[in-house]
């Protein structure tokens, strides 16, 4: 019989991992299609949470309404973000040889700039402190599973992440739009030649990814009962790490790695100390990359 203490710690680590996974799904989707690190994804998460907060304080609608409204809002955010920070730089992708380099650099910076403006803007608008939420919206009622205690949010977030992952896998592997997304991600110029509307595909991807990001934001906000302008920073980094560790192109890979990251942090707290948890998580990443230079589930480098 395993010591219930360890079971409990395992459960906590996993629930942390599921939160990272929730964020990583949207992040990986967006990265996949443009090969661009979207620094503003963390802000989408935050803005999603704030949108939910405003909605709750203004109208106090039922939980599901909040969730779906935030998802819709997130999609709109993604649309706007793409228009502002990414679309203007797409003109360079035409010049065949200079292809994506100029684009990568400039969107790296434009998304960073947007994220700065949004975060600072939120701080001015709401202050940088945590915003309290009405308690009955919080999804943190304890559930006892034998010796292990989890909360309602764990179940909800797990379910949402599973639905997102499954839906996305279905979309990418089985539908035409999914095929288009993958085609644009593999070769945007090539996609034009086969008649894919690349602009629309990219926008769709952004809308989808941001929808998931914003949804993650409000869910996690309700889970911890705390919403504040800098809340997207840590999950953003962790999602980025999980994505790369998973091998960039594989969303299930990113999810698995997110779970591993969460677990490794939980275990680090259990066996070492909370303040060294990052060390363990990042050390784990480095070791993984030393043995799998293309991530755990990544494809090999292209042949010469």
């Amino acid at each position, binding site marked *: 019989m395993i010591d219930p203490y360890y079971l409990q710690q395992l459960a906590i680590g996993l629930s942390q991992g599921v939160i990272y996974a929730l964020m990583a799904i949207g992040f990986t989707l967006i990265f996949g299609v443009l090969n661009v690190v979207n620094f503003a994804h963390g802000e989408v998460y935050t803005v999603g949470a704030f949108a939910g907060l405003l909605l709750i304080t203004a109208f106090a609608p039922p939980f599901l309404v909040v969730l779906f409204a935030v998802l819709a809002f997130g999609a709109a955010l993604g649309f706007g973000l793409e228009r502002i920070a990414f679309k203007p730089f797409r003109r360079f992708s035409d010049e065949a040889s200079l292809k994506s380099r100029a684009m990568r650099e400039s969107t790296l910076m*434009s998304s960073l700039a947007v994220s700065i403006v949004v975060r600072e803007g939120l701080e001015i608008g709401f202050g940088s402190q945590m915003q309290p939420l009405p308690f009955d919206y919080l999804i943190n009622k304890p559930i006892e599973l034998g010796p292990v205690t989890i909360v309602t949010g764990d179940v909800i977030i797990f379910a949402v992440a599973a639905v997102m992952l499954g839906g996305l896998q279905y979309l990418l592997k089985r539908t035409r739009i999914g095929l288009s997304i993958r085609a644009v991600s593999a070769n945007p110029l090539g996609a034009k030649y086969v008649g894919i509307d690349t602009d629309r595909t990219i926008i769709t991807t952004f809308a989808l990814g941001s929808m998931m990001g914003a949804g993650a934001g409000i869910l996690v906000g309700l889970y911890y009962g705390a919403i504040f302008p800098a809340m997207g920073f840590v999950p953003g980094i962790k999602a980025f790490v999980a994505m790369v560790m998973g091998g960039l192109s594989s969303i299930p890979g990113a999810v698995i790695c997110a779970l591993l990251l969460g677990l490794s942090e939980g275990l680090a707290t259990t066996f070492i100390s909370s303040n060294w948890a990052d060390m363990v998580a990042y050390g784990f990443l480095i070791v993984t990359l030393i043995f799998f230079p293309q991530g755990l589930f990544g494809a090999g480098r292209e042949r010469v």
Partner: protein
Amino acid sequence: MVPLLVLLVVFALVPYGLAKFGKGYFFQVAQLVLIYALLAVSLHLVTGAAGLLHLGHAAFYGVGAYVAALLGTEMKLGFVWGLPAAGLAAAALAFVVALPTMRLVSIYFAVATLAIGQMIHTVLLNWVAVTKGPNGVMLFSGINLFGWPVKSPVAVYFLVAGLVALSIWVLHRLSHSYYGNALRSLREDDQCADAMGVDTVRLKIEVFTVSAFFAGIAGALWAYTTGYVSPGDFGFNTSILVLAMIVVGGLGSLPGAIIGAALLILLPEVLRGIGDLRNVMVGIVMFVSILFLPKGLLGEVSALSLVRRGFGLKWGSAPSEREVGWR
């Protein structure tokens, strides 16, 4: 000659102008610009020239600062020893972490450097026995050059400016030379560079180490000029700030890195007047500059031809009589 004149202006006339105002504030800001220019130029070598997205540069800056501060307080080793030691320590650490990770390419490399940076930061913050952890380290001794205390703002400024100029000169020689060409080939197509006989892994390790060395020097300068170091200054945000400097200035362009550093240090200071909105403004300025000049304020192509005209080679016997090589 032109660049030398420019340097002269920067290093001599600027403080003269500042001295006219008689303000320590201006020296402080100018000094910060110089330290960050060094940081940016050292990052330029890795990220701009060699094309390796480095997201943990601030950590090596921090190692340099801590080594300088700890040597000063614990071993009573002053500036003369502490400065090179800081650079060497940062370089040594970079070398060790580079050995297993430099096989990585593209975004895998980026995330590995992110992890390295965060790990170093975690150590600075939590290894209380050595780094004093969150308490930081206070360095009272000030700067002492072979028995000559350097105290006045002007003197400190000159010292920092001189050291930064020297360091940037070295980085310039690396970047604007055939060695720099090899670095750029690494960025363009590492497999192809490999076929041209360029030892890509060794080159990456070298350039990562050299860059860390100068980040360490920058850190030491920060420690000596500020007198107090604490882990908060060497986190991910600082890495991103330095990255933003070189991208805004023009990725791949050494003068651009300096311009970017100046811009992103000066801008928040200049905007103090507008109050809490100033950081929003910084973001907007960054956005607008990258929107209209996506290749940076002084992009690589123009920067290289500029530098070439100043420091390049006149190839007399070639039929075209044009200056394209490096000295």
